[in-house]
């Protein structure tokens, strides 16, 4: 299932060298609105070892609003892109999403089970919230 937002992101990464990809990630990171420190609590954190990630979600007009932040720039960059794709959608939409951009822009290694703090656990957490939003 094609998705315009993801396709657009994939295009921006297309053909870039590794280091340039990371530069681009950093510029995405800079676009991300920082989370208010008061929300960076233990409960809101996604446990891991490499970088800390906080998540906060709420509903507005049936849409899920997701607020994510991290103390590492690369993680922020990934989060920033992820939010472009998943934020502000209905829980069912989110569950239906095929996040093919991850593989296409070469972030698959961040998904490995070895990376407890990787994209995988962030996505898992978002899906869990979305599922609770449906039931």
């Amino acid at each position, binding site marked *: 299932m094609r998705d315009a937002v993801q396709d657009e992101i994939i295009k921006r990464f297309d053909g870039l060298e590794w280091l340039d990809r990371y530069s681009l990630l950093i510029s995405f990171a800079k676009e991300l609105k920082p989370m208010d420190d008061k929300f960076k609590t233990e409960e809101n954190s996604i*446990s891991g070892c490499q970088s800390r990630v906080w998540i906060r979600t709420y509903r507005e007009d049936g849409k899920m609003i997701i607020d994510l932040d991290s103390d590492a720039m690369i993680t922020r960059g990934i989060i920033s892109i992820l939010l472009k794709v998943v934020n502000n959608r209905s829980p069912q939409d989110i569950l239906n999403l095929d996040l093919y951009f991850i593989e296409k822009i070469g972030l698959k*290694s961040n998904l490995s*089970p*070895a990376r*407890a703090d990787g994209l995988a656990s962030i996505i898992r957490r978002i899906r869990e919230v979305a599922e609770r939003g449906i039931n």
Partner: protein
Amino acid sequence: MTDFKKDFPILEKEIYGKKLVYLDNAATSQKPGCVIDIISEFYRSDNSNIHRGAHYLSEVSSEKYEKAREKVSDFIGARDPAEVTFTAGATDSINQVACSLEPILKGNEVLITGVEHHSNIVPWQLAGAKLRSIPMDDDCNLLTDSIEITDKTKLIAISHASNVLGSVNPIKEITRIAKEHDIPVLVDAAQSIQHLPIDVKDIDCDFLAFSGHKMYAATGVGVLYTSERFSDIVPARGGGGMVDKVTLERTTYLNPPLRYEAGTPHIAGAISVAAAIDYMQNIGMDKIRKHEHDVYSYAREKLLETDGVKVYGNTENMCGSISFNLDNIHQYDTGMILDKMGIAVRTGHHCAQPLMRSLGTEGTVRASFALYNTKEDADMLIEGIEKVRMMYT
């Protein structure tokens, strides 16, 4: 029948000028070239420590290690790879369970059988448990009707197949009885994983232990299956890789499988187990089992037909090992002479002294078979035995 021997470089060897006939597979199996190569390849191009790596090689190693876990998980029919942890071997797996369950076992009782290997005896003693055996008949069939479970019985720990006799214990029957009493069951699959189909869901055991080196993989690696029912027991070992938060006052643990893998694991070993499973599955498990059954039955029959040979144990299903003695000839003598003919068997108590006592012998000669053994190997054994008998008369 294809010739599997050619896959195993060591089987080309000559011993004292005779072609090696390796019949000590219950002690350890030989390794196919492809498994040996995968170990080398790992060290040559992927080696790195796993988990939490910030770098490429660490990702590659971690991925291969976790893929190995998945492969083992599928192979034994686990519900989830998190139920599979890599250990240092079957003995280590059993010790870990004994250590984790020590608070429950101490001063209570573990039910075992009369054919157990010391590795399924001593760990329970070290945990402070008393041992009692399920009765068996003279042929070493377990008398499951006579299983007596008391308030003190906190665990049943049984081998799937005996490393001495090759007898196969009715483990499903036993888990069924255990479940009625809500008692966990540990299955020592060290001598069955390489011979029999195993599905932990079907067996319905709580723990299953085996070694890599007896199933065509590296030394120093084993597996412990821990049912998700026991996903929150206290880990037996502490160290890097299994903790969440550590302070001098208090430490919290990760979830399984990492919870049960303290320290750097045997990464190359785990990968070799997956490679060995691949090797077997490429041949086809059914094909292997049929071939093994044919050779085993043939060898057993031949031995039973040979004059002056006493074969121990006789149960409905058997695999792997055959134990015997020659009348009036010490097993040590038999083993030494066979060795000089290039035939590798093992002699002694086979780490099963309680069984030896009930068989009324100090030791046996054990011939144990693997997928590469053939009827010709069995013939060589019989021929060797005849020669031993001649030398001693």
